[in-house]
């Protein structure tokens, strides 16, 4: 097992002492959503895997997420969970905020992206249209993407975003 302590693994606090220079993952649950179990498990899994995680937890306003990104260097990715079906409504200010704060960090969204048991398949595209970079249906995709982001970060200063992505695999699995 890892050397990380139990309390560290499960911490949901907003501000942590983090190793300088270590790549950070910011986790949050969408502004109207309180489904934190997957969020907590994933945060704990990432910590066990050696990532530094800032978990903002339940129902976090988008502005708070972006400001947290701004106040840290070395953020590898922002990942927002949304289970209650309000993803599109909750993230509708994303284009504005991305421009305002000049966000360069990849934004990842995963969960159950629309209300209703029968999906029309359009949710993923709509989220990409407002600036989400990766849409996940499976947590293992998430770990893969982070690994690749870390690797490409080690090769260059920052991976390129907004245009083509290296992760067609993950995108093809979008909802």
């Amino acid at each position, binding site marked *: 097992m890892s050397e990380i302590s139990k309390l560290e*693994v*499960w911490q949901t606090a907003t501000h942590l002492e983090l190793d300088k220079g270590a790549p950070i993952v910011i986790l949050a649950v969408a502004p109207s959503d309180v489904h*934190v179990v997957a969020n907590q498990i994933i945060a704990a899994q990432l910590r*066990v895997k050696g990532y530094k995680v800032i978990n903002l937890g339940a129902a976090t306003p988008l502005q708070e997420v972006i400001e947290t990104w701004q106040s840290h260097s070395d953020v590898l990715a922002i990942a927002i969970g949304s289970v209650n079906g309000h993803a599109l*409504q909750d993230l509708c200010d994303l284009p504005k905020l991305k421009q305002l704060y000049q966000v360069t960090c990849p934004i990842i969204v995963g969960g159950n992206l629309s209300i209703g048991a029968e999906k029309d398949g359009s949710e993923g595209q709509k989220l990409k249209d407002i600036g989400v970079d990766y849409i996940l249906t499976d947590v293992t995709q998430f770990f893969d993407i982070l690994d690749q982001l870390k690797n490409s970060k080690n090769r260059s200063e920052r991976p390129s975003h907004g245009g083509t992505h290296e992760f067609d695999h993950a995108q093809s699995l979008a909802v």
Partner: protein
Amino acid sequence: MGLDIQSDALFDQYRTYCQQTGTEPPIETEAIHYLKGLKTLSVHDLLTAARSKGDVLVQPRCGVGEIAAMTQLLETLSSKGHADILTLTIDAYTRLLQLEKVSDLATNEPDSLNGFPLLSHGWQKTRQMCASFNAPCQVRHGSPDPRLLFAATVASGITSFEGGGLSYNIPYSKDTSIKDSLRYWQEVDTYSGNLAKQNIIVDRELFGTLTAVLIPPCIALAITMIEAILAAREGVKCISIAYPQSGNLSQDVAALNCVTTLARAFLPPDVDCFPVLHQFMGVFPQARHNAEALIVLGSITARLGNATKVINKTYQEAAGIPSSQANVDGILLSKTANSWLYDLLPVPIDQIEEEQAQIYSEVLELLAPILDRDLSHDAISDAFATGELDVPFSANSSLHSAVIPARSSSGGIYISDFGNLPFSEKTKAFHRARLNTERSDATDMAAISRDILYLATETTATAAPQLS
């Protein structure tokens, strides 16, 4: 009409909200007059009758943004599913009082909402809608601060309201303090108590399901018993205590039985207390035959555990909010809980009695320290601050969430890390024996994930063992 409402701040707050949003504010005396004049049976009436007949009421969850669609949905669940109690599930924005957002969406994109925006549609339309059904409605939501919504509920002619100062904070809010939510919900209970003095019985249902994932029975029951005692102090006369199905029949029947024995021990005799079963609230299987088998297990559990009501799931649970037909199917399947034929199934009475005695004493161990301080809000808040009260996977970051649950080999939910829970050595030994696990520490994510996903397993390979 002589009103005996002391604390009318709550209703006034809602009147102010109505004025500010340009809708007609309700008049309190009229609202109470309307409630007294209702011809249909209340939720309390139905619960009382069901208990005396040994019936299990079935209630679906449902909520959509448009009022016409909501009316149609309730009509379908009522006429085709014969739902005993109807639900207005409130959307997530209203729950968190993101009122501008919900007002905007309710007007422009109502079908993007994941529930019924009662505050946006207002009490008049909601009252009219509910009046068109014979079955009474309940409001289910998840609001740490429920005051506006409760006043709107009362004004809408609805006398059944889910939630409590702990169970609607811990899973639903990141930063509302426990003291604040207890105070907000005390206003709801006080108002309900005053209505009771005028023979309007509000059913107050407490959400023992909490964070819905691997909740040990003792924690569900301790939290809801605290809420129940506080509600009874304010004069609430009808309390439904909801317990979430774990999947292990013996443990679930034992926990439901404990609701009744705990209520007898801790609540005044003039308070009606009803055990409610939530069909499995964790990650559901995708395949219809597995989802429906899980609903059947829930129905059998509800019957054998003498639940007065069951909240049904549907075979579309894994995918999101179900279609109305899937919900009808879920209701009808859950109604099998009313069949005496389930009494033909073998029952492991010894196991149930052992679990029941254990759960009961665990709840006493959890309650003892705060009962010593007379269950004051300070005592409760302090207990969460020290971790003497704790809930796994809490959304509220002020809790320790240091308790780590795990499943035994037979699927029961026990505790693998006790955090600061004030358990006796005997209780700790019981859990360790049940789990009999080699899990080294609470960072074993694979094991925790496996336990969470246990009932969502789709395999069909595990046939029943051959007896010969």
